[in-house]
């Protein structure tokens, strides 16, 4: 089998063996429906309760504030649509940012088509939301601010505490899409004044198809999916018990190893960035130099297009991404890269590499060597590079 260097941990992660082990008994032994009264279902209820407590503890929340969902996208949809509906009598204005995940942006559009107004805040060239801009955007009828904890493409970590404080001061609800941050960065919902928080298990070495929404006690949100009385009547549908148990285990381990992994990944990532920036000319580092997820590196290589780069890396067994995974196949360049001010042709040439605790220095070295070679090759085929070289030659002649 071909060796694979997996550097796309922002797209999804490998499930830990301990997580799979924790899930297994819930398929063929403790397979009961957690809503049932009999004893046979007790392990399901206990398993779910344990996950709820683990997550609550991780966030400094109460376990009754954790609602299991199918993933980050559902959590985001729920938070926005239910808040809009519950607080429509107070106002119909929502503030979010231009660099949110599509799960937020498209839900925002859905609400706009239904009579809500959504402000999409710009960000600075590092991807940071500016508090001054946020302040300007707040109106008397603003009911919700939704700003992601960390961006999935460029890794920028937003000033969540300041935003939370401002939201609280103004009596506006605050939701954060922490799909990329939860389990990777320390988060405390009280310290940061977070009212709602979305997360997804498969971004922290847990299984796909399970996530949660934290909803602060007292918020009057309707359910998003209607039916049975599960999740204290707020989220209907037979619960994905193995998935929930797996998520609990994944969160437990992620928290225990957070500091160690952050340190390790930051070092390796910085090494990667240093090598690329010094060895590949006409390259830009996207995102914030310091306020960024410890495993995220995002480069823009001028004059080349990202998909070709990805395919060539793939032929070497290297998994990376250009834009976010969900929008692959789309012809638009990443909305995030455009929002931080990149011109189209440069936005098209971006490469995101996201490390895991298993990534080695040797893998990084191999990857950098491949990138150098491939970028050079693609530039030699690029009409944009040809034009650039020719105009530079002209200038040289003129000088």
């Amino acid at each position, binding site marked *: 089998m071909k060796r694979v260097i997996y550097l796309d941990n922002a797209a999804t992660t490998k499930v830990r063996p301990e997580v799979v082990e924790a899930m297994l008994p819930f398929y063929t032994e403790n397979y009961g429906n957690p809503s049932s009264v009999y004893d046979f279902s007790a392990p399901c209820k206990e398993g779910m309760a344990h996950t709820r407590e683990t997550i609550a503890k991780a966030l400094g929340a109460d376990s009754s504030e954790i609602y299991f969902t199918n993933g980050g996208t559902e959590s985001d949809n729920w938070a926005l649509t239910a808040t809009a509906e519950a607080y429509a009598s107070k106002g119909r204005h929502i503030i979010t940012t231009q660099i949110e995940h599509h799960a937020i942006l498209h839900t925002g559009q859905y609400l706009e088509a239904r009579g809500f107004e959504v402000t999409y805040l710009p960000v600075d060239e590092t991807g940071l939301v500016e508090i001054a801009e946020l302040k300007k955007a707040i109106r008397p009828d603003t009911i919700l601010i939704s700003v992601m904890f960390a961006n999935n493409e460029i890794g920028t970590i937003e000033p969540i505490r300041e935003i939370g404080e401002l939201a609280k001061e103004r009596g506006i609800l605050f939701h954060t899409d922490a799909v990329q941050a939860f389990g990777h960065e320390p988060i405390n919902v009280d310290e940061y004044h977070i009212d709602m928080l979305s997360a997804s298990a498969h971004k922290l070495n847990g299984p796909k198809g399970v996530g949660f929404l934290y909803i602060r006690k007292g918020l009057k949100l309707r359910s998003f999916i209607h039916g049975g009385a599960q999740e204290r009547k707020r989220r209907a549908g037979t619960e994905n018990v193995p998935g929930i148990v797996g998520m609990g285990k994944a969160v437990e381990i992620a928290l225990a190893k957070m500091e160690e992994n952050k340190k390790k990944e930051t070092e390796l990532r910085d090494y990667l960035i240093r090598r690329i920036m010094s060895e590949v000319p006409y390259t830009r580092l996207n995102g914030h130099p310091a306020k960024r997820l410890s495993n995220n590196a995002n480069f823009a290589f001028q*004059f*080349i*297009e990202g*998909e*070709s780069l990805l*395919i060539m890396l793939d*032929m070497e067994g290297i998994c990376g991404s250009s834009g976010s995974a969900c929008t692959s*196949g*789309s*012809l638009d*360049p990443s909305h995030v890269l455009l929002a931080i001010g990149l*011109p*189209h*042709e440069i936005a*098209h040439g971006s490469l995101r590499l996201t490390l895991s605790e298993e990534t080695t220095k040797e893998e990084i070295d191999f990857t950098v060597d491949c990138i150098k070679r491939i970028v050079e090759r693609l530039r*030699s*085929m*690029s*009409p*944009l590079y*040809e034009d650039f070289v020719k105009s530079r030659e002209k200038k040289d002649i003129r000088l």
Partner: protein
Amino acid sequence: MYSEKVMDHFQNPRNVGEIENASGVGTVGNAKCGDIMRIYLDIDEESHVIRDCKFKTFGCGAAVATSSMATELVKGKTIEEAMQVTNKAVMEALDGLPAVKVHCSLLAEEAIHAALWDYAQKHEIRIEGLDQPKSDISEHDEDEEY
């Protein structure tokens, strides 16, 4: 996602490069849609045979592969024959393209036409069926609409 033929033409593109003092050069596409193709033609002025053809492309795998295939298909052909090389012909020769990549084949057709237009302008001739190329090709919408 890509056929073997596409992957082959992407990995080993034929006719990459420039032609100095080309008979015709055409550049189509734009950075916004993410694909730019430039075609160089070396045309025999007597016989109207395309003696050589080279390309440079900024774009995805399909963009590179369609450029490569398009140059292969027009090389050695007369201008009139080259005018018959449609995007469908390019796609067929590549054993098909994913729906979202069909526009690349249109772009390749357009690039050939742009280079031929350039040749026609320089030589003040008219090529049957050839109109002034759009400076860039509009994005063709994705196949399905919900």
